Protein backbone atom coordinates (compact mmCIF):
# COMPACT_ATOMS: atom_id res chain seq x y z
CA UNK A 1 0.00 0.00 0.00
CA UNK A 2 2.84 2.32 0.87
CA UNK A 3 4.46 1.44 -2.40
CA UNK A 4 1.25 2.15 -4.26
CA UNK A 5 0.96 5.61 -2.75
CA UNK A 6 4.58 6.31 -3.53
CA UNK A 7 4.12 5.15 -7.11
CA UNK A 8 1.02 7.30 -7.46
CA UNK A 9 2.95 10.31 -6.24
CA UNK A 10 5.75 9.49 -8.67
CA UNK A 11 3.22 9.24 -11.45
CA UNK A 12 1.67 12.54 -10.42
CA UNK A 13 5.06 14.19 -10.32
CA UNK A 14 6.03 12.85 -13.74
CA UNK A 15 2.65 13.85 -15.09
CA UNK A 16 3.03 17.40 -13.80
CA UNK A 17 6.46 17.66 -15.41
CA UNK A 18 4.95 16.48 -18.68
CA UNK A 19 2.15 19.00 -18.24
CA UNK A 20 4.56 21.90 -18.18
CA UNK A 21 6.21 20.67 -21.31
CA UNK A 22 2.91 19.99 -23.06
CA UNK A 23 1.34 23.28 -21.94
CA UNK A 24 3.94 25.29 -23.81
CA UNK A 25 3.57 23.09 -26.86
CA UNK A 26 -0.19 23.27 -26.97
CA UNK A 27 -0.21 27.03 -26.43
CA UNK A 28 2.19 27.63 -29.28
CA UNK A 29 0.37 25.27 -31.56
CA UNK A 30 -3.06 26.54 -30.62
CA UNK A 31 -2.23 30.21 -31.00
CA UNK A 32 0.45 30.38 -33.65
CA UNK A 33 -0.40 27.15 -35.47
CA UNK A 34 3.26 26.27 -35.12
CA UNK A 35 4.53 22.70 -34.81
CA UNK A 36 7.69 23.03 -32.77
CA UNK A 37 9.75 19.86 -32.61
CA UNK A 38 12.54 21.82 -30.95
CA UNK A 39 10.48 22.42 -27.82
CA UNK A 40 12.41 19.57 -26.27
CA UNK A 41 15.63 21.47 -26.91
CA UNK A 42 14.42 24.26 -24.62
CA UNK A 43 13.77 21.59 -21.99
CA UNK A 44 17.35 20.42 -22.42
CA UNK A 45 18.72 23.96 -22.27
CA UNK A 46 16.83 24.57 -19.02
CA UNK A 47 18.50 21.52 -17.49
CA UNK A 48 21.98 22.43 -18.73
CA UNK A 49 21.66 26.05 -17.59
CA UNK A 50 20.48 24.91 -14.17
CA UNK A 51 23.42 22.55 -13.72
CA UNK A 52 25.91 25.16 -14.89
CA UNK A 53 24.60 28.17 -12.99
CA UNK A 54 24.12 26.21 -9.80
CA UNK A 55 27.73 25.13 -10.00
CA UNK A 56 28.87 28.72 -10.68
CA UNK A 57 26.87 30.46 -8.00
CA UNK A 58 27.02 27.66 -5.46
CA UNK A 59 23.34 28.19 -4.73
CA UNK A 60 20.63 25.90 -6.00
CA UNK A 61 17.87 28.49 -5.93
CA UNK A 62 19.94 31.21 -7.55
CA UNK A 63 21.19 28.85 -10.23
CA UNK A 64 17.67 27.72 -11.00
CA UNK A 65 16.37 31.28 -11.20
CA UNK A 66 19.10 32.34 -13.62
CA UNK A 67 18.53 29.21 -15.67
CA UNK A 68 14.85 30.00 -15.99
CA UNK A 69 15.60 33.54 -17.12
CA UNK A 70 18.21 32.26 -19.54
CA UNK A 71 15.84 29.77 -21.12
CA UNK A 72 13.22 32.48 -21.48
CA UNK A 73 15.74 34.66 -23.32
CA UNK A 74 16.81 31.83 -25.60
CA UNK A 75 13.17 31.07 -26.35
CA UNK A 76 12.38 34.63 -27.29
CA UNK A 77 15.50 34.87 -29.42
CA UNK A 78 14.49 31.71 -31.29
CA UNK A 79 11.03 33.18 -31.85
CA UNK A 80 12.37 36.40 -33.30
CA UNK A 81 15.09 34.84 -35.43
CA UNK A 82 13.45 31.66 -36.70
CA UNK A 83 9.80 31.19 -35.83
CA UNK A 84 8.62 34.51 -37.24
CA UNK A 85 9.55 33.33 -40.70
CA UNK A 86 7.55 30.14 -40.32
CA UNK A 87 4.13 31.46 -39.36
CA UNK A 88 1.51 30.73 -41.97
CA UNK A 89 3.65 28.16 -43.72
CA UNK A 90 2.91 24.51 -44.30
CA UNK A 91 3.30 22.27 -41.27
CA UNK A 92 5.89 20.28 -43.18
CA UNK A 93 8.04 23.42 -43.24
CA UNK A 94 7.67 23.77 -39.48
CA UNK A 95 8.66 20.16 -38.94
CA UNK A 96 11.73 20.43 -41.14
CA UNK A 97 12.87 23.78 -39.80
CA UNK A 98 12.46 22.83 -36.15
CA UNK A 99 14.13 19.49 -36.85
CA UNK A 100 17.06 21.53 -38.11
CA UNK A 101 16.92 23.51 -34.86
CA UNK A 102 17.15 20.29 -32.86
CA UNK A 103 20.35 19.34 -34.69
CA UNK A 104 21.73 22.81 -34.12
CA UNK A 105 20.94 22.84 -30.40
CA UNK A 106 22.18 19.32 -29.76
CA UNK A 107 25.49 20.08 -31.42
CA UNK A 108 25.81 23.50 -29.76
CA UNK A 109 25.31 21.90 -26.38
CA UNK A 110 27.89 19.26 -27.27
CA UNK A 111 30.28 22.01 -28.35
CA UNK A 112 29.87 24.03 -25.19
CA UNK A 113 29.49 21.34 -22.55
CA UNK A 114 30.96 18.27 -24.16
CA UNK A 115 29.24 14.96 -24.91
CA UNK A 116 29.20 13.49 -21.44
CA UNK A 117 26.25 15.21 -19.85
CA UNK A 118 26.15 16.94 -16.50
CA UNK A 119 24.88 16.30 -13.04
CA UNK A 120 23.04 18.56 -10.71
CA UNK A 121 23.33 17.50 -7.11
CA UNK A 122 20.44 18.17 -4.77
CA UNK A 123 20.97 20.73 -2.06
CA UNK A 124 21.01 19.08 1.34
CA UNK A 125 17.90 20.83 2.59
CA UNK A 126 15.86 19.16 -0.15
CA UNK A 127 17.59 15.83 0.04
CA UNK A 128 15.62 14.32 2.86
CA UNK A 129 12.47 12.29 3.14
CA UNK A 130 9.39 14.04 4.41
CA UNK A 131 6.59 12.36 6.26
CA UNK A 132 3.43 13.06 4.32
CA UNK A 133 1.18 10.57 6.02
CA UNK A 134 1.72 8.56 9.18
CA UNK A 135 4.39 6.04 8.36
CA UNK A 136 4.70 7.12 4.73
CA UNK A 137 7.77 9.01 3.63
CA UNK A 138 8.38 10.70 0.31
CA UNK A 139 11.35 12.57 -1.11
CA UNK A 140 11.24 16.26 -0.22
CA UNK A 141 12.50 17.20 -3.63
CA UNK A 142 9.87 15.27 -5.52
CA UNK A 143 7.28 16.79 -3.22
CA UNK A 144 8.55 20.24 -4.06
CA UNK A 145 8.30 19.42 -7.76
CA UNK A 146 4.65 18.58 -7.24
CA UNK A 147 4.04 21.74 -5.26
CA UNK A 148 5.84 24.01 -7.71
CA UNK A 149 4.13 22.41 -10.71
CA UNK A 150 0.71 22.76 -9.16
CA UNK A 151 1.50 26.38 -8.37
CA UNK A 152 2.57 26.97 -11.95
CA UNK A 153 -0.56 25.24 -13.22
CA UNK A 154 -2.69 27.43 -10.97
CA UNK A 155 -0.78 30.49 -12.14
CA UNK A 156 -1.33 29.51 -15.76
CA UNK A 157 -5.00 29.00 -15.09
CA UNK A 158 -5.21 32.42 -13.51
CA UNK A 159 -3.26 33.98 -16.36
CA UNK A 160 -5.35 32.41 -19.08
CA UNK A 161 -8.73 32.73 -17.41
CA UNK A 162 -8.54 35.99 -15.49
CA UNK A 163 -6.19 38.42 -17.16
CA UNK A 164 -6.39 40.53 -20.34
CA UNK A 165 -3.44 38.74 -21.83
CA UNK A 166 -5.03 35.44 -21.03
CA UNK A 167 -8.16 36.52 -22.82
CA UNK A 168 -6.11 37.36 -25.87
CA UNK A 169 -4.48 33.97 -25.64
CA UNK A 170 -7.81 32.18 -25.46
CA UNK A 171 -9.19 34.28 -28.28
CA UNK A 172 -6.12 33.59 -30.35
CA UNK A 173 -6.46 29.89 -29.73
CA UNK A 174 -9.94 29.79 -31.18
CA UNK A 175 -9.74 32.49 -33.83
CA UNK A 176 -6.38 33.76 -34.86
CA UNK A 177 -7.44 36.20 -37.55
CA UNK A 178 -9.91 37.99 -35.34
CA UNK A 179 -7.33 38.80 -32.71
CA UNK A 180 -5.14 40.35 -35.37
CA UNK A 181 -8.07 42.23 -36.78
CA UNK A 182 -8.81 43.66 -33.34
CA UNK A 183 -5.57 45.59 -33.56
CA UNK A 184 -3.67 43.69 -30.92
CA UNK A 185 0.08 43.74 -31.35
CA UNK A 186 0.27 40.23 -32.65
CA UNK A 187 4.04 40.15 -32.99
CA UNK A 188 4.54 40.97 -29.35
CA UNK A 189 1.84 38.56 -28.25
CA UNK A 190 3.46 35.76 -30.20
CA UNK A 191 6.89 36.47 -28.78
CA UNK A 192 5.51 36.49 -25.26
CA UNK A 193 3.53 33.29 -25.74
CA UNK A 194 6.51 31.52 -27.23
CA UNK A 195 8.67 32.84 -24.40
CA UNK A 196 6.16 31.56 -21.87
CA UNK A 197 6.23 28.14 -23.52
CA UNK A 198 10.02 28.17 -23.47
CA UNK A 199 10.09 29.11 -19.80
CA UNK A 200 7.71 26.27 -18.97
CA UNK A 201 9.83 23.81 -20.92
CA UNK A 202 12.97 25.11 -19.23
CA UNK A 203 11.34 24.82 -15.82
CA UNK A 204 10.39 21.22 -16.52
CA UNK A 205 13.93 20.52 -17.66
CA UNK A 206 15.61 22.04 -14.66
CA UNK A 207 13.24 20.47 -12.17
CA UNK A 208 13.88 16.97 -13.36
CA UNK A 209 17.62 17.58 -13.69
CA UNK A 210 18.66 16.47 -10.19
CA UNK A 211 16.62 13.28 -10.25
CA UNK A 212 16.60 12.20 -13.87
CA UNK A 213 19.11 13.41 -16.39
CA UNK A 214 21.05 16.23 -17.99
CA UNK A 215 22.24 14.92 -21.33
CA UNK A 216 22.16 15.64 -25.03
CA UNK A 217 19.13 14.20 -26.75
CA UNK A 218 16.98 14.29 -23.62
CA UNK A 219 14.59 16.60 -25.44
CA UNK A 220 14.02 14.15 -28.27
CA UNK A 221 13.10 11.41 -25.84
CA UNK A 222 10.41 13.34 -24.03
CA UNK A 223 9.00 15.53 -26.81
CA UNK A 224 7.06 12.67 -28.34
CA UNK A 225 5.25 12.11 -25.08
CA UNK A 226 4.52 15.84 -24.91
CA UNK A 227 3.02 15.74 -28.41
CA UNK A 228 0.94 12.69 -27.56
CA UNK A 229 -0.42 14.54 -24.52
CA UNK A 230 -1.22 17.55 -26.67
CA UNK A 231 -3.13 15.38 -29.12
CA UNK A 232 -5.04 13.55 -26.39
CA UNK A 233 -5.86 16.71 -24.50
CA UNK A 234 -6.80 18.71 -27.54
CA UNK A 235 -4.60 21.19 -29.33
CA UNK A 236 -4.78 24.63 -27.78
CA UNK A 237 -6.31 23.45 -24.53
CA UNK A 238 -4.27 23.84 -21.35
CA UNK A 239 -6.93 22.09 -19.31
CA UNK A 240 -6.76 19.19 -21.73
CA UNK A 241 -2.99 19.09 -21.47
CA UNK A 242 -3.29 18.98 -17.67
CA UNK A 243 -5.72 16.09 -17.59
CA UNK A 244 -3.94 14.14 -20.30
CA UNK A 245 -0.53 14.71 -18.73
CA UNK A 246 -1.61 13.42 -15.32
CA UNK A 247 -3.17 10.40 -17.00
CA UNK A 248 -0.07 9.67 -19.03
CA UNK A 249 2.24 10.24 -16.08
CA UNK A 250 0.27 7.80 -13.94
CA UNK A 251 -0.03 5.19 -16.68
CA UNK A 252 3.67 5.36 -17.44
CA UNK A 253 4.85 5.15 -13.83
CA UNK A 254 2.31 2.66 -12.53
CA UNK A 255 2.58 0.71 -15.74
CA UNK A 256 6.29 0.35 -15.45
CA UNK A 257 6.30 -0.88 -11.88
CA UNK A 258 3.32 -3.20 -12.13
CA UNK A 259 4.19 -4.59 -15.53
CA UNK A 260 7.66 -5.32 -14.20
CA UNK A 261 6.13 -7.32 -11.36
CA UNK A 262 3.67 -9.06 -13.65
CA UNK A 263 6.25 -10.07 -16.20
CA UNK A 264 8.69 -11.19 -13.52
CA UNK A 265 6.16 -13.81 -12.49
CA UNK A 266 6.62 -15.68 -15.74
CA UNK A 267 9.90 -14.41 -17.13
CA UNK A 268 13.36 -13.40 -16.03
CA UNK A 269 14.26 -10.16 -14.31
CA UNK A 270 16.09 -8.92 -17.40
CA UNK A 271 13.12 -9.61 -19.65
CA UNK A 272 10.89 -7.73 -17.22
CA UNK A 273 13.29 -4.80 -17.03
CA UNK A 274 13.28 -4.29 -20.77
CA UNK A 275 9.71 -5.33 -21.55
CA UNK A 276 7.90 -3.28 -18.90
CA UNK A 277 8.79 0.20 -20.22
CA UNK A 278 7.88 -1.02 -23.70
CA UNK A 279 4.47 -2.15 -22.53
CA UNK A 280 3.65 1.02 -20.64
CA UNK A 281 4.72 3.13 -23.63
CA UNK A 282 2.52 1.00 -25.84
CA UNK A 283 -0.39 1.59 -23.49
CA UNK A 284 0.06 5.35 -23.82
CA UNK A 285 0.17 5.22 -27.60
CA UNK A 286 -2.85 2.95 -27.59
CA UNK A 287 -4.68 5.55 -25.51
CA UNK A 288 -3.79 8.19 -28.08
CA UNK A 289 -5.00 5.98 -30.90
CA UNK A 290 -8.32 5.41 -29.12
CA UNK A 291 -8.81 9.13 -28.48
CA UNK A 292 -8.00 9.93 -32.10
CA UNK A 293 -10.56 7.43 -33.30
CA UNK A 294 -13.32 8.37 -30.87
CA UNK A 295 -12.77 12.11 -30.62
CA UNK A 296 -10.22 13.32 -33.16
CA UNK A 297 -10.08 16.89 -31.88
CA UNK A 298 -8.88 15.70 -28.50
CA UNK A 299 -10.70 15.62 -25.20
CA UNK A 300 -10.86 19.37 -24.55
CA UNK A 301 -10.24 20.92 -27.91
CA UNK A 302 -10.21 24.72 -28.12
CA UNK A 303 -12.32 24.59 -31.24
CA UNK A 304 -10.10 25.93 -33.96
CA UNK A 305 -9.71 24.03 -37.26
Amino acid sequence: MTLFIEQCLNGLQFGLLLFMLAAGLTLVFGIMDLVNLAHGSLYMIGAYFAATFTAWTGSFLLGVAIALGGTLLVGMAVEVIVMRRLYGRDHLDHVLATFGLILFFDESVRLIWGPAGLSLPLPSWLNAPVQILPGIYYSAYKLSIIIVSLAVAAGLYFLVMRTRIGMLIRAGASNREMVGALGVNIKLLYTLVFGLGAALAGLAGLMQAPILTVQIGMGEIIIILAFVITVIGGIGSIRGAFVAAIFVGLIDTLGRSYFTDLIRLAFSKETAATAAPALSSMLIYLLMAVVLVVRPEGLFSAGQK
Partner: protein
Amino acid sequence: MKGWLNARNVFIAIVLVALTLLPVYAGITGDRFVVTLFTRIIILAIAATSLNLILGYGGMMSFGHAAYLGIGGYAVGIFAHEGIYSGFIQWPVALIMSALFALVIGALSLRTRGVYFIMITLAFAQMAYYVVAGLARYGGDDGLTIYKRSDFAGLVNLSNKTFFYYFCLIVLYACIYIVWRLVNSRFGLVIQGVRSNETRMRAIGFPTYRYRLVCFVIAGTMCGLAGALVANHTDFVSPAMMYWTRSGDLIVMVVLGGMGSLFGPLFGAVALLVLEEVLSGVTEYWQIILGPLLLLVVLFARGGIDGLLGKVRHA
Protein backbone atom coordinates in the same frame (compact mmCIF):
# COMPACT_ATOMS: atom_id res chain seq x y z
CA MET B 1 13.53 14.46 -78.59
CA LYS B 2 14.72 18.02 -78.15
CA GLY B 3 13.57 18.32 -74.59
CA TRP B 4 15.92 15.67 -73.22
CA LEU B 5 19.10 17.69 -73.11
CA ASN B 6 18.68 19.90 -70.08
CA ALA B 7 20.58 20.51 -66.88
CA ARG B 8 18.51 18.10 -64.85
CA ASN B 9 18.86 15.13 -67.17
CA VAL B 10 22.56 15.72 -67.68
CA PHE B 11 23.03 15.80 -63.93
CA ILE B 12 21.04 12.58 -63.51
CA ALA B 13 23.09 10.89 -66.19
CA ILE B 14 26.33 11.95 -64.54
CA VAL B 15 25.22 10.69 -61.15
CA LEU B 16 24.06 7.34 -62.52
CA VAL B 17 27.23 6.78 -64.49
CA ALA B 18 29.36 7.79 -61.52
CA LEU B 19 27.53 5.38 -59.24
CA THR B 20 27.85 2.56 -61.73
CA LEU B 21 31.58 3.10 -62.13
CA LEU B 22 32.32 3.73 -58.47
CA PRO B 23 33.75 0.26 -57.65
CA VAL B 24 36.03 0.57 -60.65
CA TYR B 25 37.33 3.85 -59.25
CA ALA B 26 37.70 2.20 -55.86
CA GLY B 27 39.61 -0.68 -57.37
CA ILE B 28 42.03 1.69 -59.09
CA THR B 29 42.63 3.99 -56.14
CA GLY B 30 42.44 1.29 -53.50
CA ASP B 31 39.92 3.38 -51.56
CA ARG B 32 37.64 0.66 -50.15
CA PHE B 33 35.88 3.01 -47.79
CA VAL B 34 34.10 4.87 -50.58
CA VAL B 35 32.35 1.65 -51.59
CA THR B 36 31.12 1.16 -48.04
CA LEU B 37 29.96 4.77 -47.83
CA PHE B 38 28.12 4.64 -51.13
CA THR B 39 26.52 1.28 -50.36
CA ARG B 40 25.00 2.95 -47.31
CA ILE B 41 23.96 5.94 -49.42
CA ILE B 42 22.28 3.70 -51.96
CA ILE B 43 20.37 1.73 -49.34
CA LEU B 44 19.15 4.92 -47.69
CA ALA B 45 18.24 6.25 -51.13
CA ILE B 46 15.96 3.23 -51.51
CA ALA B 47 14.31 4.10 -48.19
CA ALA B 48 14.04 7.75 -49.24
CA THR B 49 12.56 6.75 -52.60
CA SER B 50 9.87 4.79 -50.80
CA LEU B 51 9.14 7.77 -48.55
CA ASN B 52 9.01 10.09 -51.54
CA LEU B 53 6.20 7.97 -52.94
CA ILE B 54 3.91 8.84 -50.04
CA LEU B 55 5.40 12.20 -49.08
CA GLY B 56 6.43 13.78 -52.35
CA TYR B 57 3.85 12.32 -54.68
CA GLY B 58 1.14 11.53 -52.17
CA GLY B 59 1.40 14.46 -49.80
CA MET B 60 1.28 12.13 -46.78
CA MET B 61 3.67 13.41 -44.19
CA SER B 62 4.63 10.25 -42.37
CA PHE B 63 7.08 10.74 -39.54
CA GLY B 64 7.41 7.05 -38.82
CA HIS B 65 9.00 5.71 -41.95
CA ALA B 66 12.21 4.58 -40.28
CA ALA B 67 10.14 1.96 -38.49
CA TYR B 68 10.13 -0.14 -41.67
CA LEU B 69 13.91 -0.06 -41.83
CA GLY B 70 13.83 -1.60 -38.39
CA ILE B 71 11.17 -4.16 -39.21
CA GLY B 72 12.96 -5.33 -42.33
CA GLY B 73 16.29 -5.33 -40.55
CA TYR B 74 15.04 -7.20 -37.50
CA ALA B 75 13.30 -9.78 -39.67
CA VAL B 76 16.73 -10.65 -41.06
CA GLY B 77 18.42 -10.26 -37.67
CA ILE B 78 15.99 -12.36 -35.68
CA PHE B 79 16.08 -15.22 -38.15
CA ALA B 80 19.87 -15.06 -38.27
CA HIS B 81 20.00 -15.12 -34.47
CA GLU B 82 17.86 -18.25 -34.50
CA GLY B 83 20.17 -19.86 -37.04
CA ILE B 84 18.06 -19.36 -40.14
CA TYR B 85 20.24 -17.66 -42.71
CA SER B 86 18.26 -18.33 -45.85
CA GLY B 87 17.34 -15.14 -47.63
CA PHE B 88 14.42 -16.97 -49.19
CA ILE B 89 12.85 -17.07 -45.74
CA GLN B 90 14.20 -13.85 -44.20
CA TRP B 91 13.44 -11.42 -47.00
CA PRO B 92 9.85 -12.39 -47.78
CA VAL B 93 9.11 -12.20 -44.04
CA ALA B 94 10.75 -8.77 -43.94
CA LEU B 95 8.52 -7.60 -46.78
CA ILE B 96 5.36 -9.17 -45.41
CA MET B 97 5.88 -7.84 -41.87
CA SER B 98 6.55 -4.35 -43.25
CA ALA B 99 3.44 -4.56 -45.39
CA LEU B 100 1.31 -5.70 -42.45
CA PHE B 101 2.64 -2.99 -40.16
CA ALA B 102 2.01 -0.38 -42.85
CA LEU B 103 -1.49 -1.73 -43.35
CA VAL B 104 -2.38 -1.41 -39.67
CA ILE B 105 -0.68 1.96 -39.11
CA GLY B 106 -2.04 3.31 -42.38
CA ALA B 107 -5.57 2.11 -41.73
CA LEU B 108 -5.61 4.02 -38.42
CA SER B 109 -3.52 7.06 -39.35
CA LEU B 110 -5.03 7.84 -42.72
CA ARG B 111 -8.30 8.70 -41.04
CA THR B 112 -6.54 11.78 -39.69
CA ARG B 113 -5.09 14.83 -41.38
CA GLY B 114 -2.36 17.38 -41.05
CA VAL B 115 -0.45 17.53 -37.81
CA TYR B 116 -2.52 14.72 -36.28
CA PHE B 117 -1.33 12.45 -39.08
CA ILE B 118 2.27 13.45 -38.43
CA MET B 119 1.89 12.77 -34.71
CA ILE B 120 0.12 9.48 -35.02
CA THR B 121 2.62 8.04 -37.51
CA LEU B 122 5.41 9.23 -35.26
CA ALA B 123 3.82 7.71 -32.19
CA PHE B 124 3.23 4.33 -33.80
CA ALA B 125 6.79 4.19 -35.04
CA GLN B 126 8.00 4.98 -31.53
CA MET B 127 5.79 2.21 -30.28
CA ALA B 128 7.56 -0.19 -32.63
CA TYR B 129 10.87 1.17 -31.35
CA TYR B 130 9.89 0.46 -27.76
CA VAL B 131 8.64 -3.02 -28.61
CA VAL B 132 11.91 -3.90 -30.31
CA ALA B 133 13.96 -2.29 -27.54
CA GLY B 134 11.97 -4.40 -25.11
CA LEU B 135 12.98 -7.70 -26.72
CA ALA B 136 15.71 -8.76 -24.34
CA ARG B 137 16.23 -11.98 -26.25
CA TYR B 138 17.23 -10.06 -29.35
CA GLY B 139 19.58 -7.62 -27.72
CA GLY B 140 17.11 -4.99 -26.52
CA ASP B 141 18.69 -1.58 -26.48
CA ASP B 142 22.14 -2.90 -27.35
CA GLY B 143 21.08 -4.36 -30.65
CA LEU B 144 21.78 -7.63 -32.37
CA THR B 145 24.87 -8.72 -34.25
CA ILE B 146 24.40 -10.72 -37.43
CA TYR B 147 27.12 -13.26 -37.97
CA LYS B 148 26.25 -14.39 -41.43
CA ARG B 149 24.67 -12.50 -44.31
CA SER B 150 21.51 -13.66 -46.05
CA ASP B 151 22.13 -16.78 -48.04
CA PHE B 152 20.31 -17.30 -51.29
CA ALA B 153 21.31 -20.91 -51.88
CA GLY B 154 24.68 -19.77 -53.17
CA LEU B 155 23.18 -17.87 -56.09
CA VAL B 156 24.49 -14.55 -54.85
CA ASN B 157 27.33 -13.77 -52.49
CA LEU B 158 26.32 -10.83 -50.36
CA SER B 159 29.55 -10.97 -48.38
CA ASN B 160 31.53 -9.73 -51.34
CA LYS B 161 31.78 -5.98 -50.94
CA THR B 162 31.73 -5.10 -54.64
CA PHE B 163 29.02 -7.58 -55.45
CA PHE B 164 26.86 -6.30 -52.60
CA TYR B 165 27.32 -2.75 -53.85
CA TYR B 166 26.06 -3.64 -57.33
CA PHE B 167 23.26 -5.72 -55.82
CA CYS B 168 22.03 -2.69 -53.88
CA LEU B 169 22.49 -0.43 -56.89
CA ILE B 170 20.34 -2.71 -59.03
CA VAL B 171 17.66 -2.78 -56.32
CA LEU B 172 17.75 1.02 -56.23
CA TYR B 173 17.35 1.32 -60.00
CA ALA B 174 14.53 -1.22 -59.89
CA CYS B 175 12.75 0.72 -57.13
CA ILE B 176 13.09 4.01 -58.98
CA TYR B 177 11.72 2.33 -62.08
CA ILE B 178 8.81 0.91 -60.11
CA VAL B 179 8.03 4.32 -58.62
CA TRP B 180 8.21 5.83 -62.12
CA ARG B 181 5.67 3.41 -63.48
CA LEU B 182 3.50 3.74 -60.37
CA VAL B 183 3.22 7.52 -60.35
CA ASN B 184 2.31 7.72 -64.01
CA SER B 185 -0.25 4.95 -63.87
CA ARG B 186 -3.93 5.43 -63.12
CA PHE B 187 -3.13 4.65 -59.49
CA GLY B 188 -0.37 7.23 -59.40
CA LEU B 189 -2.55 9.94 -60.89
CA VAL B 190 -5.14 9.31 -58.20
CA ILE B 191 -2.46 9.63 -55.52
CA GLN B 192 -1.18 12.84 -57.05
CA GLY B 193 -4.70 14.18 -57.41
CA VAL B 194 -5.35 13.49 -53.74
CA ARG B 195 -2.17 15.36 -52.81
CA SER B 196 -3.25 18.26 -54.99
CA ASN B 197 -6.87 18.56 -53.88
CA GLU B 198 -8.47 15.78 -51.88
CA THR B 199 -11.95 17.27 -51.66
CA ARG B 200 -12.11 17.56 -55.41
CA MET B 201 -11.02 13.97 -55.86
CA ARG B 202 -13.85 12.82 -53.61
CA ALA B 203 -16.28 15.12 -55.39
CA ILE B 204 -15.45 13.67 -58.78
CA GLY B 205 -15.91 10.18 -57.53
CA PHE B 206 -12.77 8.67 -56.03
CA PRO B 207 -12.88 6.77 -52.72
CA THR B 208 -9.59 8.32 -51.72
CA TYR B 209 -8.91 6.45 -48.47
CA ARG B 210 -8.30 3.09 -50.08
CA TYR B 211 -5.88 4.43 -52.66
CA ARG B 212 -3.83 6.22 -50.04
CA LEU B 213 -3.77 3.10 -47.91
CA VAL B 214 -2.46 0.96 -50.76
CA CYS B 215 0.18 3.59 -51.50
CA PHE B 216 1.18 3.63 -47.85
CA VAL B 217 1.57 -0.15 -47.83
CA ILE B 218 3.67 -0.15 -51.00
CA ALA B 219 5.96 2.49 -49.54
CA GLY B 220 6.32 0.62 -46.26
CA THR B 221 7.15 -2.63 -48.03
CA MET B 222 9.81 -1.00 -50.19
CA CYS B 223 11.36 0.49 -47.07
CA GLY B 224 11.29 -2.92 -45.42
CA LEU B 225 13.40 -4.17 -48.30
CA ALA B 226 15.86 -1.38 -47.58
CA GLY B 227 15.88 -2.55 -43.97
CA ALA B 228 16.84 -6.07 -44.99
CA LEU B 229 19.69 -4.57 -47.01
CA VAL B 230 20.83 -2.47 -44.04
CA ALA B 231 20.99 -5.54 -41.86
CA ASN B 232 23.21 -7.26 -44.39
CA HIS B 233 25.36 -4.19 -44.90
CA THR B 234 26.15 -3.38 -41.29
CA ASP B 235 25.85 -6.96 -39.97
CA PHE B 236 24.05 -5.38 -37.06
CA VAL B 237 20.57 -4.14 -36.18
CA SER B 238 19.48 -2.04 -33.25
CA PRO B 239 16.35 -0.19 -32.16
CA ALA B 240 18.19 3.07 -32.90
CA MET B 241 17.51 2.40 -36.59
CA MET B 242 13.83 3.10 -35.86
CA TYR B 243 14.16 6.07 -33.53
CA TRP B 244 12.02 8.95 -34.63
CA THR B 245 14.93 11.17 -35.50
CA ARG B 246 15.93 8.62 -38.18
CA SER B 247 12.53 9.20 -39.76
CA GLY B 248 13.42 12.86 -39.66
CA ASP B 249 16.67 12.13 -41.51
CA LEU B 250 14.73 10.37 -44.26
CA ILE B 251 12.36 13.31 -44.61
CA VAL B 252 15.36 15.63 -44.84
CA MET B 253 16.77 13.52 -47.68
CA VAL B 254 13.51 13.64 -49.59
CA VAL B 255 13.07 17.37 -49.18
CA LEU B 256 16.72 18.20 -49.81
CA GLY B 257 16.69 16.17 -53.01
CA GLY B 258 13.40 17.52 -54.22
CA MET B 259 10.00 16.15 -53.25
CA GLY B 260 7.90 14.55 -55.92
CA SER B 261 10.77 14.04 -58.31
CA LEU B 262 12.07 10.62 -59.32
CA PHE B 263 15.72 11.10 -58.58
CA GLY B 264 15.29 13.63 -55.80
CA PRO B 265 15.58 11.01 -53.03
CA LEU B 266 18.83 9.74 -54.52
CA PHE B 267 20.24 13.27 -54.75
CA GLY B 268 19.10 13.92 -51.21
CA ALA B 269 20.72 10.77 -49.84
CA VAL B 270 23.96 11.50 -51.66
CA ALA B 271 23.92 15.15 -50.61
CA LEU B 272 23.16 14.48 -46.97
CA LEU B 273 25.62 11.66 -46.46
CA VAL B 274 28.42 13.16 -48.51
CA LEU B 275 27.88 16.44 -46.68
CA GLU B 276 28.08 14.52 -43.42
CA GLU B 277 31.38 12.94 -44.46
CA VAL B 278 32.87 16.15 -45.73
CA LEU B 279 31.71 18.34 -42.89
CA SER B 280 32.77 15.90 -40.19
CA GLY B 281 36.23 16.04 -41.67
CA VAL B 282 36.17 19.79 -41.13
CA THR B 283 34.70 19.84 -37.67
CA GLU B 284 33.28 17.21 -35.43
CA TYR B 285 30.41 19.59 -34.71
CA TRP B 286 29.19 19.56 -38.31
CA GLN B 287 25.52 19.29 -37.33
CA ILE B 288 25.73 22.89 -36.17
CA ILE B 289 26.05 23.70 -39.84
CA LEU B 290 23.54 21.14 -41.04
CA GLY B 291 20.79 22.42 -38.76
CA PRO B 292 20.71 25.99 -40.05
CA LEU B 293 21.37 24.70 -43.57
CA LEU B 294 18.16 22.73 -43.37
CA LEU B 295 16.39 25.86 -42.17
CA LEU B 296 17.67 27.82 -45.12
CA VAL B 297 16.57 25.11 -47.56
CA VAL B 298 13.09 25.17 -46.09
CA LEU B 299 12.88 28.93 -46.31
CA PHE B 300 14.50 29.54 -49.65
CA ALA B 301 14.95 26.36 -51.67
CA ARG B 302 11.89 24.26 -50.98
CA GLY B 303 12.16 22.47 -54.28
CA GLY B 304 15.42 20.95 -53.19
CA ILE B 305 18.21 19.99 -55.55
CA ASP B 306 15.81 18.85 -58.24
CA GLY B 307 14.07 22.21 -58.01
CA LEU B 308 17.31 24.10 -58.39
CA LEU B 309 18.21 22.00 -61.42
CA GLY B 310 14.86 22.77 -62.95
CA LYS B 311 15.57 26.47 -62.62
CA VAL B 312 18.78 26.25 -64.60
CA ARG B 313 18.01 27.46 -68.10
CA HIS B 314 20.43 27.36 -70.94
CA ALA B 315 20.65 30.36 -73.25
